[in-house]
């Protein structure tokens, strides 16, 4: 059965063209070509049907949707982490500062009541550092930031329990120094002195009472503008760890070890009842001030204790087994072992030979327990 010619209606001229096209060569493949093509086709078909070596694909291990969700979560987490890190260094006026404050608000709401004082101190540290950074980069310090510092200072003074901790005191000392720097350099932030005056006074007293001192030369004198390098614009103290919080505030642990204070009473000296010691640099160890146990006056015979760690006023050094001289004989002690030779130390001036006027000997401390006075 033959196929009928094309059903396209054509004119006579078109029919001649059609006839030409139909008469166009219809060559057939030679048997060799035909076999070669067929052989090649079967070979390629076998290759196509053969199992291809499995290529490693993550989609084979993890479904596509799960992988997409994983990528999305990772992107969000990493992106948010980067944002949080960048926001941590921001200061007022920057785009990421609201993010930082929002995170702080959230942190405050999630913190327990026990940990809130430390968090408040941490926030105060951050606010002060922000003010210092603004000052160091010659940008205005917003009023709201100053108000916040004043409020936080007030709040910190409430948590006086914190002040017994050395690291907290070191942080407070550093904050105090920085506030001083900011207030001295910029008159517009002088209101810190008025807004938080009482709080800072309490703060200063607490620091000094605890013996946390800082070199006076770290604070530039009034009228001398500190350079940006003078202002510590490093990251806020995070309070953990606090071995070396700031170079401005050497702690008690940084001082040389005090010689054992021989007390006949065994009662530890009371801090609160004593006036603050003079913040002076500990004496350097040298020929004039030999270290304890290396010559000089033997213990109990007039060693001069380091400032701030000697016997507090009212608690005179009395070697064990020896009798406390009566108050009437303080000025002229009897000759003997208790009377150190001149120039060999003894009680530092103003620290025990005679109580300050109006203070007298504190009750209960003139006579050690179990050792009666000799009349």
């Amino acid at each position: 059965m033959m196929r009928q010619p094309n059903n396209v209606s054509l004119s006579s001229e078109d029919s001649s063209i059609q006839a030409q096209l139909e008469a166009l060569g219809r060559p057939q493949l030679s048997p060799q070509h035909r076999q070669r093509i067929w052989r090649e086709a079967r070979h390629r078909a076998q290759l196509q049907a053969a199992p291809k070596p499995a290529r490693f694909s993550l989609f084979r291990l993890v479904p596509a949707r799960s992988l997409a969700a994983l990528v999305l979560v990772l992107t969000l987490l990493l992106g948010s982490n980067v944002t949080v890190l960048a926001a941590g260094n921001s200061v007022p006026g920057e785009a990421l500062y609201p993010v930082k404050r929002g995170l702080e608000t959230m942190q405050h709401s999630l913190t327990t009541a026990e940990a809130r004082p430390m968090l408040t101190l941490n926030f105060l540290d951050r606010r002060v550092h922000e003010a210092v950074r603004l000052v160091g980069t010659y940008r205005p310090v917003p009023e709201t930031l100053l108000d916040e510092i004043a409020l936080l200072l007030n709040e910190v003074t409430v948590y006086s329990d914190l002040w017994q901790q050395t690291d907290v005191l070191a942080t407070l000392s550093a904050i105090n120094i920085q506030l001083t720097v900011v207030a001295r350099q910029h008159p517009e932030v002088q209101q810190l002195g008025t807004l938080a005056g009482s709080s800072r006074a309490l703060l200063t007293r607490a620091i000094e009472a605890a013996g946390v001192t800082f070199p006076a030369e770290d604070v530039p004198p009034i009228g001398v503008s500190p350079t940006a390098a003078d202002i510590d614009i490093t990251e806020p103290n995070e309070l953990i760890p606090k071995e070396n919080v700031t170079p401005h505030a050497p702690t008690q642990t940084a001082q040389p070890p005090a010689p054992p204070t021989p007390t006949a009473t065994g009662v530890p000296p009371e801090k609160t009842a004593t006036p603050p010691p003079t913040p002076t640099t500990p004496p350097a160890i040298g020929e004039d001030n030999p270290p304890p146990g290396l010559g000089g006056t033997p213990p109990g015979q007039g060693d001069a204790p380091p400032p701030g760690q000697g016997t507090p006023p009212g608690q005179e050094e009395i070697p064990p087994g020896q009798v406390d001289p009566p108050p009437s004989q303080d000025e002229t002690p009897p000759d003997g072992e208790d009377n150190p030779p001149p120039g060999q130390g003894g009680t530092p001036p103003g620290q025990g030979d005679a109580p300050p006027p109006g203070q007298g000997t504190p009750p209960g401390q003139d006579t050690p327990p179990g050792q009666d006075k000799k009349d």
Partner: protein
Amino acid sequence: MYPAIDIDEQQIIQKAVKGNQAALGAIYEQHADAVYRYMLYRTGDHHIAEDITAEVFADMITAIRSYRDMGVPFRAWLFRIARARLVDHWRKMQRRVEQRITFSEDVEEFLLGDSLEDRHAYDDLLEALQYLTPAEREIILLRYAADMDNDDIATAVQSNANAVKSMMYRALKKLRTILHNKAKTLEGGTNDEATE
């Protein structure tokens, strides 16, 4: 001249679907020349036409297992594969549009035969084919080189029979015009030479 329709074609195809190698060979014998000619007209190169033809039948061997008689003529189904492989070839050659094809001597000899008289008679027709649009040229070649009717062509090019018929009419008319103008130009040149 049209190839006879094998009344047992459907049975052969059913055997081929089941993996019968003889049936596959029979199908190849029946369609190899048409596919090869079509490729040769479209590429103008023996080696390329041979390579693509082998690729088409390799695909046929692989895909015929899933072939179902849905009323689509087998040749139309086969030429869908052929057109896809041709597009792949052009993509490999980074040619988006088929350019004008110049047939080499051996291709013309293969297409038009050894007779020098035939070659002169059909040279103009082959040249005129190059002036058609790619779509027009394709349906002309499918019709006259691959021996397909309008319905099969419409199925192969995923169009409808009426559109194919209209395009076929326009293509033939354009061919006639081209050949007429060329003959007129040649006559003018001959008259000028005679006048001189």
